Structures are given as structure tokens and as C-alpha cells.
């Protein structure tokens, strides 16, 4: 095909089937940038489902990317469990102090009711509004944090690592609670109109845990959880490495893997070919200082390495573009993928 003849959804589904669509799909995965489009503070923006729905539609119109991202902010899940969210003027909302200060408290935790939890209900409403607008033109990507990775916010990272190694009974108890929550949260988003769920699982990355530990823990948890999610999933390591466990990840039932800029995209594509679609891996931290020409060069290189044969979606490596990345860079990325991403791929 020499011109754009597909809708975004068709384009994405074709590449997920490891076939070449009309062009490499682009997932910009913008969240808080919608606030800028609406002239709101980040805190105001996330206070109403209507703002996020409007923001996402404006962002897609501006940057011509191939998905709607119904994700609000990472700590929304720990907020549902009773945690604090800290807002900033120029960055993503962050999780406050951990809610589990002693492993014994895990026994008292109760899985939040998705529909009765105001912050989650807001996301579901935004998803419904977006689905009514976008229909089947583009996929809506919902987000869950994996049961294995959520404790980083619930307990703090050091305490969670100690739990993992030293208190398997409480670890298993927490995983069961988190799995039930994760499944209910994912399925509620799918029912609200999300097309697929991005399963963020950075603790499973080989940057954080060994493959042996992953096979005993995060791998099994992902298999069990993903099997209960009633829609397609994409696993994302949020900048963590995963090349040594690609074959394992493919066995969790996921269709996509979000990869780090620390790993070579060509190697990743070769390892994933026919098994997983590669999502990635532009450097989200350096991106804020790119010139438009540098952005174009990065896009061309990524397309050359991972585009041929389909099974590739161009994106950043973290799953969230920083607030500091300017419009001109985002527009340059979009222009470049529209120019150089057409199949058959002409860049090398």
C-alpha cells in the first residue's frame, strides 16, 4: 500500500497480526499534556472525566497518533487503596507515603470496589465518553499496574523487595488481593469501552528482578491475571529491560511488549518476531531537548530497525511523555512517522 488507507484501529490490528499495515502506528501515550490543551492545571485537568476526554480528543487531532490513552496517572490505583496523591504544576501526580508500613497490615487490606471508588469511576466515565466519540476509529488503551508491581507504591520499594525475599506468606496474600483488584479494574475499563489494557509491570523487568525470581513470581502472576482479563493486553516495563525474558513474556498471554531504550530495537524485534508486537522505544527523558531534526532521525532509525514485517508500534520507552517535552518535538515525531513510516519501509 502506498497511501494511508486504514483507520488507526485497522492499522494497529494489522501490525498486531504481524502483517504490514499502510504505515507504522504511532502511540504517543500523552496523559497530562491534555491539561495544556485545555488551559488547566494538571490537578484541575484530572478532576473531571469530561476534561480528560476532551483533552485526549484534542491531543489526537493535533498529533495524529493512533490511539486514545485513557490513563490518568500512575498513583490512581494506590489512591483507590487509600493512598495519597501529590500534584505538581509541571509533572505527573506522584504517590505519597506508602499505605502498608508493616507487612502485618496486609492481612487487613480490602480490595476496593471499582465502581464505588471515585477516582476509578472518573476514569471509567472518561473511557465511556471517549468511546462514544472515537467509536471504532482508534483503539482506546486503558491501563492497569500489575499485581506484582503495585506494591512499590503500596509499601515502598525497599520494603517490598524484603517482603518478596523474606516473607512469602504475606507476599502471596498481597498478590492475591492485587490480582483480584487488577482483574476487576481491567475488566471495568474494557466494559466502559477500552479496546485493550496496558499491563504495566516494571518490577518484572530484568533491571529489577532476576529471571529466576520472575519465573517464580511476576511471570506466574501475569499468566493468572492476564488469563482473567477479558480483552487484549500489552505488557509494559516502563523503561526496564526485558530482552532476556521475551520468550517468557510471550507465554503470559500478552500481545505486545513495551521496551526500554537501553535495549537495541533491532535485537528486540528479532527476539519478538511472530510472538509479540514491539512497542517503543524513544528516549522519553532526552526527548525534551531534541530538535525537530533529531526527533526525525530517531524516528527514522526506529522504523528502519523494527518496522519491516509489521509487529511494531512506535512509542516512547516509558509509557508516559514528560510534561517538559515541547509541541515542536511531538509534532516532528508525528510528521516523521507519517513521512517515513509508510509500508513498504523505505528507510534503512
Amino acid at each position, binding site marked *: 500500500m502506498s497511501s494511508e488507507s486504514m483507520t488507526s484501529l485497522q492499522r494497529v490490528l494489522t501490525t498486531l497480526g504481524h502483517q504490514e499495515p499502510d504505515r507504522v502506528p504511532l502511540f504517543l501515550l500523552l496523559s497530562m499534556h491534555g491539561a495544556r490543551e485545555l488551559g488547566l492545571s494538571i490537578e484541575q485537568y484530572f478532576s473531571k472525566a469530561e476534561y480528560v476526554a476532551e483533552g485526549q480528543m484534542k491531543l489526537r487531532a493535533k498529533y495524529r497518533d493512533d490511539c486514545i490513552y485513557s490513563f490518568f496517572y500512575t498513583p490512581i490505583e494506590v489512591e483507590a487503596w487509600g493512598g495519597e496523591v*501529590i500534584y*505538581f504544576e*509541571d*509533572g*505527573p501526580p*506522584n*504517590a*505519597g*507515603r*506508602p499505605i502498608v508500613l508493616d507487612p502485618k497490615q496486609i492481612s487487613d487490606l480490602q480490595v476496593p470496589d471499582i465502581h464505588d471508588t471515585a477516582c476509578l469511576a472518573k476514569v471509567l466515565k472518561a473511557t465511556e465518553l471517549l468511546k462514544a466519540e472515537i467509536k471504532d476509529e482508534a483503539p482506546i488503551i486503558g491501563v492497569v499496574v500489575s499485581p506484582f508491581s503495585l506494591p*512499590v*507504591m503500596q509499601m*515502598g*520499594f*525497599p520494603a517490598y*523487595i*524484603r517482603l*518478596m*525475599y*523474606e516473607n512469602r506468606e504475606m507476599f502471596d496474600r498481597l498478590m492475591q488481593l492485587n490480582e483480584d483488584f487488577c482483574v476487576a479494574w481491567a475488566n471495568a475499563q474494557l466494559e466502559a469501552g477500552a479496546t485493550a489494557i496496558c499491563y504495566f509491570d516494571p518490577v518484572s523487568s*530484568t*533491571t*529489577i*528482578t*532476576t529471571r529466576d*525470581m520472575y519465573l517464580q513470581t511476576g511471570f506466574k502472576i501475569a499468566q493468572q491475571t492476564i488469563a482473567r482479563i477479558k480483552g487484549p493486553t500489552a505488557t509494559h516495563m516502563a*523503561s526496564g*529491560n526485558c530482552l*532476556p525474558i521475551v520468550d517468557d513474556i510471550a507465554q503470559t498471554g500478552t500481545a505486545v511488549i513495551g521496551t526500554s*531504550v537501553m535495549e537495541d530495537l533491532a535485537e528486540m524485534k528479532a527476539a519478538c518476531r511472530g510472538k509479540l508486537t514491539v512497542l517503543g522505544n524513544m*528516549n*522519553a*527523558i*532526552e526527548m*525534551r*531537548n531534541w530538535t525537530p531534526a533529531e526527533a526525525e532521525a530517531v524516528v527514522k532509525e526506529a522504523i528502519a530497525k523494527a518496522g519491516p514485517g509489521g509487529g511494531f508500534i512506535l512509542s516512547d520507552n516509558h509509557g508516559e511523555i*514528560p*510534561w*517538559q517535552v515541547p509541541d515542536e518535538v511531538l509534532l516532528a515525531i508525528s510528521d516523521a512517522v507519517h513521512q517515513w513510516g509508510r509500508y513498504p519501509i523505505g528507510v534503512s
Partner: protein
Amino acid sequence: MDIGLKFEQALLSLDRVAAREIVLDGAKSMGAIEFVNEVAVPVLVKIGHGWEEGTYALAQIYMSGSICEEMIDLIMPPADPDRIKQPEMAIVVLEDFHVLGERIVYSVLRASGYELQEFGHGCKVEDVIEKVKQHGTKILLVSVLMLRSALLISDLVKRLREEGLDVKVIVGGAPFRFDHKLWQEVGADAMGMDGMEARDIITKIIGGEA
């Protein structure tokens, strides 16, 4: 088996009993400071390199550093005169409450014989300035997780200079690993990719061999 290899295996397998025995025996036969310099530090360097090369994972780095710190405290408690003479040093997490890197650096430094203040987690720039004044800090290690917090270090450096505080600022954390020019952009004196690099930088600052 070589004592270093035994100690490495004990740390990586989280075998506190074996680690304790090796540390106590080593301190008795070699001397505490010699054990730290000739066994503990090289083992931590090796494990740290293992993470950079993808052989070991961060969870192992954290657990082995933490156990090593615990064991070295047995032979070299906080007030021990053998601990390295140094300017006042402190570590802080700017804004975030969920940082692993700061714990790893803290453990590596203490296991290497250094002492340092902990200024805490989730700190604001002005909190840090006050603590620096209060403790007379000369070397400040700043750990961050988010890009926003990393960029905030430029405000911290500016405020330290405005206050006339002579402090070396060493930064670390995920944003610096993904953008190698960022530490210079925020006006830091140095950046450590991991705990051992932070230790090497401090050793150079105070005039020793890295």
C-alpha cells in the same frame, strides 16, 4: 574458596549466617578496616558491575548491599574510629517517597566505611537547605526518581549558592541514567550511575584513591 567469592555468594544468596561468619572471621584475621577495603568493597564493586552488565538485578543489589551494611556494622559500628575520616556528608530523596536507589547508595557507602546523615524522603528544596545549614553538610547526595525532581535540583544548587553554602552536590537516579547530560544541565558537581560510582566520586572529592 577465596574469601571474596564466599562473601559474594553469601550476600547474593541472602545467607546472613554465612555472611556474619565471614565478616567476623575476616575482621579477626585481617583487621576490620582491611576486611572492608580488601573484601567487602571489591565484592560490592563486582555485584554493582554485574547490574550494569545485566548479570544481577536491582533487587539483588539492594538486598546484598543492605546485608553487607548490617554485617560491617558488627565490626565497625557508627562511631568506630576506623570509619573513614570525611567531611560532613548527607543523602536525601527530593520529593519522592518511593526510592530504592537512595537506600542502595546509603548501604554501599556505610558498608564501605563511610558515615552519612539521612535527610529523609519527600524533601522540598527549602527543607534540604535548612538541613545542610544545620549539619554543616559539605557533600550532598541527591537521589530522584522523576524527571521533574531531577530538574528541581537546579533550584537546589542555585539556593545553595545564594546561601553561600560550599557543598558538593552529587546526583543519581533514573532520569540521569537515561540522559547522561542532565547532571550538568542541573548544575550538579557529579553524577553516580550506581552506589559504587557514588562511592568513587566521594573518595576522589576527599582526596583518596577511588
